[in-house]
């Protein structure tokens, strides 16, 4: 029996035929609307309602005091970091032609649908962010180099970038799911509302060679474009919606740190989704050690990348000791948010380092899972630390340094509701999207069967994996 395990691990599943894979996964998609799903939808709907209440409470206070919107901005940034970056788990290995992410690529891509919800969350921030005429710095060099740029340049460009990311993300998941949508169209009884919806979404997919070629080609282009937009959006948000609010915070590396942290959060989100699918979604045979090991290594590497970026910025400020640098260290690290910094440091870097270096933990299912929860919590604390601190700076018009480091802003009941609502709404969006689009890519699982061959080599059996040009 050919092994489906990893490095001598026991086989976890028998090799199925393409027809069996198709039948099995379609059937799992259809029956995933059970009691657990309904309870989850109910729970996250309640959280979303709480979030709306929190938002109304916050709006009543007005938008002129940015300090009151710090937690709101942090919640938005957290979802952008986790759900926004999660599709990269599907995109990057696909470009590298790796096979191990096939069972989880769709669950990663589906996170791009959450972008639709986060786009709604983003809109109020456009009112909160002060216009350029109030004298704060900007990426767009308002009034400093050449002709003045429009007063709302950061708002306009960030909105366009956000829209572009969401549109590309939705197109990506739709393009990826086309063959599976067509299969569902053909499986459902003709003329039903659901069948009509799938027929419309499938856009006449018949699986011809030209259609497959087109789909692969566009998946590559959309993936590359999504990545470029993700980087660009993080660059805009981390500068114009964050850095420019703190006079004297000049950190050329921070946009990259923001992205690295987001990729960490994205990988952790997919890992957590994998566990839920495996334990409660009925996908135990499809999602195995290969996927956890692959993502675990990635998570470990990204944790090291994050600390390197963080330290590279820190050491320059610490050595430089210019007044603006001293105040930035005071604001974000040593001062009012020191406990949050410790929490972020331990959860985002220290735990992954000390645990993931051990083979038995790295090559397990629960080890990387627990660490992914730690990384998600660390990312959340990180966003709180940076956004709440930045939004609490009162005078944003000083040119070279903040004059007084503001005190800690503690969350009120509205902030707690908002954070719960944003996270709950994101998960609810994901759950509802998974009802329409199969959470596991059926065609990618079937394609894998063609690329995988088991052959004897001397006295052992080896797995030979093909890599297409």
């Amino acid at each position, binding site marked *: 029996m050919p092994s489906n395990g990893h490095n001598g691990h026991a086989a976890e599943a028998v090799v199925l035929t393409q027809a069996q894979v198709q039948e099995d996964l379609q059937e799992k998609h259809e029956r995933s609307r059970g009691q657990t799903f309904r309870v989850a939808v109910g729970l996250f709907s309640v959280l979303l309602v709480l979030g709306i209440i929190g938002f109304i409470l916050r709006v009543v206070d007005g938008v002129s005091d940015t300090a009151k919107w710090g937690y709101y901005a942090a919640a938005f940034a957290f979802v952008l970091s986790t759900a926004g970056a999660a599709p990269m788990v599907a995109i990057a290995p696909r470009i590298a032609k790796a096979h191990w992410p096939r069972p989880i690529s769709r669950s990663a891509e589906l996170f791009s649908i959450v972008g639709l919800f986060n786009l709604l969350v983003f809109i109020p921030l456009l009112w909160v962010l002060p216009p350029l005429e109030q004298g704060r710095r900007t*990426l767009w060099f308002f009034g400093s180099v050449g002709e003045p740029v429009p007063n709302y340049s950061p708002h306009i460009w960030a909105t366009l970038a956000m829209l572009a990311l969401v549109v590309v993300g939705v197109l990506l998941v739709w393009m990826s799911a086309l063959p599976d949508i067509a299969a569902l169209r053909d499986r459902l009884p003709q003329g039903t509302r659901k069948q009509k919806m799938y027929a419309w979404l499938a856009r006449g997919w018949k699986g011809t060679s030209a259609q497959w070629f087109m789909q692969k080609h566009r998946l590559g282009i959309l993936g590359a474009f999504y990545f470029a937009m993700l980087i660009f959006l993080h660059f805009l948000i981390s500068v114009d919606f964050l850095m420019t609010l703190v006079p004297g915070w000049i950190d*050329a590396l921070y946009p990259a740190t923001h992205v690295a942290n987001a990729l960490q959060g994205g990988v952790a989100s997919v890992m957590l989704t994998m566990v839920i699918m495996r334990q409660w979604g009925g996908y135990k045979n499809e999602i195995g050690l290969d996927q956890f090991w692959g993502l675990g290594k990635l998570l470990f590497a990204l944790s090291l990348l994050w600390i390197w970026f963080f330290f*590279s910025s820190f050491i320059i400020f610490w050595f430089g000791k210019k007044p603006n640098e001293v105040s930035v260290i005071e604001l974000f690290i040593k001062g009012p948010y020191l406990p949050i910094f410790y929490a972020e440091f331990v959860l985002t870097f220290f735990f992954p380092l000390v645990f993931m270096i051990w083979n038995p933990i790295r090559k397990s299912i629960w080890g990387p899972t627990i660490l992914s929860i730690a990384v998600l919590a660390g990312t959340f604390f990180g966003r709180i630390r940076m956004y709440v601190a930045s939004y609490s700076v009162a005078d944003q018009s000083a040119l070279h340094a903040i004059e007084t480091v503001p005190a800690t802003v503690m969350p009120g009941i509205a902030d707690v509701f908002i954070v719960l609502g944003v996270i709950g709404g994101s998960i609810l969006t994901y759950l509802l999207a998974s009802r329409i689009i199969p959470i596991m890519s059926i065609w990618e699982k079937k394609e894998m069967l063609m690329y995988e061959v088991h052959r004897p080599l001397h006295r052992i059996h080896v797995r*030979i994996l093909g890599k297409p040009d």
Partner: protein
Amino acid sequence: MQEHVQLNSKEVNDILLKDVLGMPKWWLPAVLFFLVVFLAGGAAFGYMLNKGVGVTGLNRPVMWGFFMVNFVFWIGISHAGIMISAILRLTQAEWRRPLTRAAEVLTVFSLTSALMAAPLVHVGRPWRAALWVFPYDFERGVWPNVRSAFVWDPSAVMTYLTASTLFVIIALLPDLAIIRDRTTGTAHKVYSLLCLGWRGTPRQWKLQAVAGILLSALVLPVFVSVHSIVSWDFAVQVGVEGWHSTIFAPYFIIGAIHSGVSAVATVMVLMVWLYKWQKILTPDHLDAIGRLLIIVATIWFFAFFLEWVFALYTLEDPELALRELQVFKHPWMALFIVFLITAYFFPVPMWMFKKVRRNMFWMFVTTISVNIGMWLERFLIIVLGLARRQAFTFDWGTYHPSMIEILMVIATFAWVMFGMLVFAKVFPLIPLFDIKEGMVGGPHKIKIGRKEIPASIHE
């Protein structure tokens, strides 16, 4: 140019050991030429020791010139070895096999070149390097300042050199045993000594494989720290505009990978041209390295973009003046344009074409172009940062490198070429065992419909 050729062990040995056990006609003249150039650089160094650093073009305010540029450049090239060997080994990229050793050897000789450029030559009084290790004045408590990047530098570079040398030695052991078994007399004795009793037992193979993986994992932090520290030589200073930037460490590292991997591609082409290893080094390998270079170059360009954006974002007059000097003032403007074109805008669009990536000549041209650009990049960072005319200073000099400096810079290039050629004469420049491992089990192809696609073994 042919694609993958299935070879048996004997054929691999014959192809790769031909020039170790024999000697190509061009080898001796080439080695002598590089030796003479290197010795000319040595003579220039002797002259500088005798007369003092006044014979260089260094003058206030530009006290860091060609030597430091060259130091950073060679440290950058040295990043090739670990990028190709450690990272590609850990990610099990099949195409790494013929490239690893050349990349590792390039790392070792680049590092020795870097050590020559900075601690030995740049300081002017190299014997004082010993005082970094043994402080010269115990009485008055004068110790090297461990908080200085200049103390971290030699520590990091020496650690990297040690690790890289170990990397080369561990991977060489099985190949040395093969040469031992094919030589007689003194050569046989020397190779017997070098291969440390390698017999190819299962235990030895296992230890060698584990050592390779462990070294790969352990050397990666060293690899990152080396160029980070080199970047901090500059970035921790607040006095020089353009240097005090948080992006410097990642910017230097990715720039180093860009130039280092390009250098490996250049060496690959030279290996095919000089040693006729077309059956081992195929266009597939060039194609893979070309695709890797597109990604690396684009990340580097993004870091360059961030560095520039945030330099302008400071809105500080000295910083803006420096950028103006780089882009609008003669002759720096011309160098800046050449730098941008050679480092990115010429090679990357070229690599977009598969035909270019698979063509030896064009890969040679484009990768040489990258390293011209990357050398200029370091020059523009280091020299211009210092050359900007500041207010209230009495020295408004600029920098013109002297012949002595130029000779010494050329000598470092000659040293690396000399070292690589001598190494290739004594040891195989492509790991025999790695190539054979890649050939195990026959040509890996999987048939899908009417098409055969390449495949690789997974446990």
